[in-house]
């Protein structure tokens, strides 16, 4: 099976030659279709930079990213816009809903940008709204929704064009625990039922426990990788915590 995402030796440096910061220092990994991959790391570890490189929001300094066999760095103009809208769907920490558009209009925004037929998108909208339980807030403005509803509307917007890869940047970051759990259940459900491929950046161990595989990043390098086998979510969560403890400088790993 061909990987959806293939990242080879990715580097990203900030600053001038004398004073360089390596945000990413040779990262290599693959994402297979249907995976739910989490990327964890402390703040400043480079996880957001990594996600932004995939989202083509920032340009990497070296290495290459292939999505469905196409090299991202070579995409330009129309193809780049097409990639941003159709190949990947993006879920933001702060939802980034346009507050002067209703829920429905927000969700349909990508379809209007990419000339998708009205009928087709309406059908998809209905299906997603039912699954994400946002049917009743579709005609409300973001101001009139709860945080959880907003993030679920944002999720619907990310999913509306059935992207090959969903990039989620701390999707639970601005939510309380109940809403966080709810959105994670939905994402995990989409992963299982629709076989959606999800790449999620988080530092919330709870949210991460929904993933199938987790990469830990520290100082721009992949530091560790764990997979969820047959264990329960609770057991997986404990495993994540122990890795985090090490990562964060636990007693056995004092710098």
């Amino acid at each position: 099976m061909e990987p959806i995402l293939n990242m080879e030796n990715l580097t990203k440096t900030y600053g001038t030659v004398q004073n360089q910061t390596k945000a990413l220092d040779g990262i290599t990994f693959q994402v297979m279709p249907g995976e739910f991959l989490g990327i964890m790391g402390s703040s400043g570890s480079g996880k957001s930079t990594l996600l932004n490189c995939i989202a083509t929001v920032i340009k990497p300094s070296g290495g290459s990213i292939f999505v469905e066999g196409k090299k991202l760095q070579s995409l330009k103009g129309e193809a780049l816009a097409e990639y941003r809208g159709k190949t990947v769907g993006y879920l933001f920490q702060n939802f980034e809903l346009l507050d002067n558009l209703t829920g429905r209009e927000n969700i349909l925004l990508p379809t209007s940008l990419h000339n998708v037929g009205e009928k087709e998108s309406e059908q998809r909208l209905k299906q997603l709204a039912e699954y994400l339980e946002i049917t009743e807030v579709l005609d409300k403005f973001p101001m009139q929704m709860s945080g959880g509803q907003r993030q679920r509307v944002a999720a619907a917007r990310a999913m509306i064009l059935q992207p090959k890869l969903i990039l989620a940047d701390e999707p639970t970051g601005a939510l309380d625990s109940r809403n966080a759990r709810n959105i994670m259940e939905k994402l995990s459900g989409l992963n299982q039922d629709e076989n959606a491929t999800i790449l999620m950046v988080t530092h919330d161990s709870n949210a991460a426990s929904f993933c199938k595989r987790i990469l830990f990043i520290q100082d721009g390098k992949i530091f560790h990788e764990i997979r969820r086998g047959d264990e329960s979510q609770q057991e997986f969560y404990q495993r994540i915590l122990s890795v985090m403890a090490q990562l964060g400088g636990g007693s056995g790993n004092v710098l």
Partner: protein
Amino acid sequence: MFSDLILRNSRRSRKENGLFFSSLVISIIAFYIILSLSRQDVMIFLAKMESDAVSRLLLMIPVFYVLTLGILFFLIYYACKYQMERRRKEFGVYLMMGMRRKKLFGMLLAEDLLGSGLALIIGLPVAVLISELISLITAKLVGMGIIGHQFSLSIPALIFTVVGFMVIKFAAFLILSSKISRQEIGTLLKPSVESEKKKAPAFVYGLSAVVGIGMLIATYSMAISGISWSRNEMMLLTLLLGFVGTILLFYGMRALIALLIKKGKTNRKLHVFTFRQIQENVIHQSTSMAISSLLILAALCCFGAGIGIAGANKLEKNHVQDYTFRDYSTENPEEVLPHLEKTLQENGLIQEFSQIWEMRIGHVYEEETTTDTENATEDENESMDAVENSDAMGDTVTNENYTVISFGSVIDEVSKLPQSEARDLVINELEAQDMSKDVYLICLSDYNKLLAAAGKPTMTLAENEAAVYQDRDWTNDAEMQLFNSVLADKPEIMLNQIPVKLTGEMQTVDLVTDRSITLSFALILPDDQFLKYTNGDYTLYVNAILNRENGKSASLMSAISDMNEQLDNSDLSEADIDYESYLQNMGRQLFFMVAASYVTIYLGIIFLVVANTIIGVQFLMNQQKTGRRYQTLIRLGATYQDLCSSARKQINWFMGLPVFVAAVSSLFGVRSIFSGVISYRDSESMGQMIAIAAAMILLLCVIEWVYMTVVRHSSDRYLLTLMEPQREE
């Protein structure tokens, strides 16, 4: 380091808000231009001829100055407010870092002064240049070769410009900075959240739009039908209705735009986003959009009135007589011409004139005269000026039952013609003459000399015949055509109870030089009939034409100017002889033209600039406030082109809506001004009016296009900065 910060901040403000900076420059130019009016070539020239009127206009300048000051204060206040709002967080950070409020204030003041100084450095030379250009162009336009142009720098105007500009800038700054400094650091640091405005149910907006449109329609019909001009209260009511109507319309416009959003459900790129943005702008800025729209309307009306007045007072190129003399030394009209000729002869000026002839104008002499009438006729003899521009003939008191003139049969005949505006006006005119029981009479041989001098064929009239005279100011082409068709049948009227046949074409050549003396209606009679009807009691003017073969001076204008000097130096005034030259007459007309068009066009431009700047700055500020939305769109896969085209559409709508409403209103407003301010007879034919309106709309389109292009450029530039990937912290 501190001064570096000031320099950098000030440069940044100018760059980010170029539109605002350029309106600062424009306001400086506006100040200087209105203040240096007295130094314009035309005004210097006119001051010699019409010193009273000119000094009265110049007295008005402080009023316009203060008015401009007030309008521009609002502009500067609004633009500065947005600028300050945008930098709130920055101020908060400065204060957090321990900058004292006093120092922050000082820093802002220094930045402000720097910006103002720069605006003055750029604005003042441009203002002087433009003022010189206007001076040169107006002088060229009115063909005043006689006034030599000289570069004039008005120091008081410069000083007042700088002072006025600094005062409003400083006042705006003080108000705004005191608002900012009163806030807590915490509130400054937080991004200012637009408090969600309370939303009324949709039907309220719909209703408001409908009521607004209704009020506007009422306003238009009141303005057009002339009800507004009948009484001051009515005018006030019309203006109030228009004002409230426009505000309501813009308040309710969100409902109309919501309809557009629903209607355009097709998946056109960013359609929904574009219209939601427009709707949001309309919701947040409905009042200022309405005000902008009203300002644009005011500008258009000013242009319309200015152009209309200028057009109505068009300088006549084909004048006939250069001079008209009046002799106040004698009561006997027959002595006037010899006396004048003798005086000119004595001063060696007679050979300067190629032609000198009498122009006799009188009233019908009534046989059963009462003392009242005698007095009245005497009055009239003493000052013909009483006739200026009015049908003052009604003043002559006559025996109630006595009819000097009766148009009965002519009116009947005109009434039979198919209904038209011209027909009704002609009937009104004739009925007025009927009622006035009096009519002016002109002596045929004098008028024939005038015709000959004008290069027109002379007329012959039989004993019981008369020709109709009407000044061009009192009639238009349609009326003349209609009247001529009636005259072709030689209708009969009663003059002093004797039947007289009207014949020939209607006559319109100006009788005397002074164009403010016009006759609305008169009859031309053969010489002996004239003397019979007037009983030898008439007013005498002496017309004269300069000898053009002398060729001493380059132009007729300078020839007349030279002659005026010679006449002033002669003992003409000692002989109690008064004169009016074509030059003085032209000066008077020119003054009205220049004063009216200058002031109205000036105000028009100020209104237009203010309206456009307010609305343009608001759009750009709003765009920057909602910049994050555009960033989200980029992430969702919108290309730069998509964003630009959406922003352009928003600009077109946001700026276009007020302009559109103003343009529609102006059609009625200008029409109303034409019928209200300028009398119908003065206004040109309908075609010309439409041409003026078209020219105005074209001018408006050009100005709007320039503004929209500037705003679009800024918007494109801003969106490009969003396209650059930014590091997310």
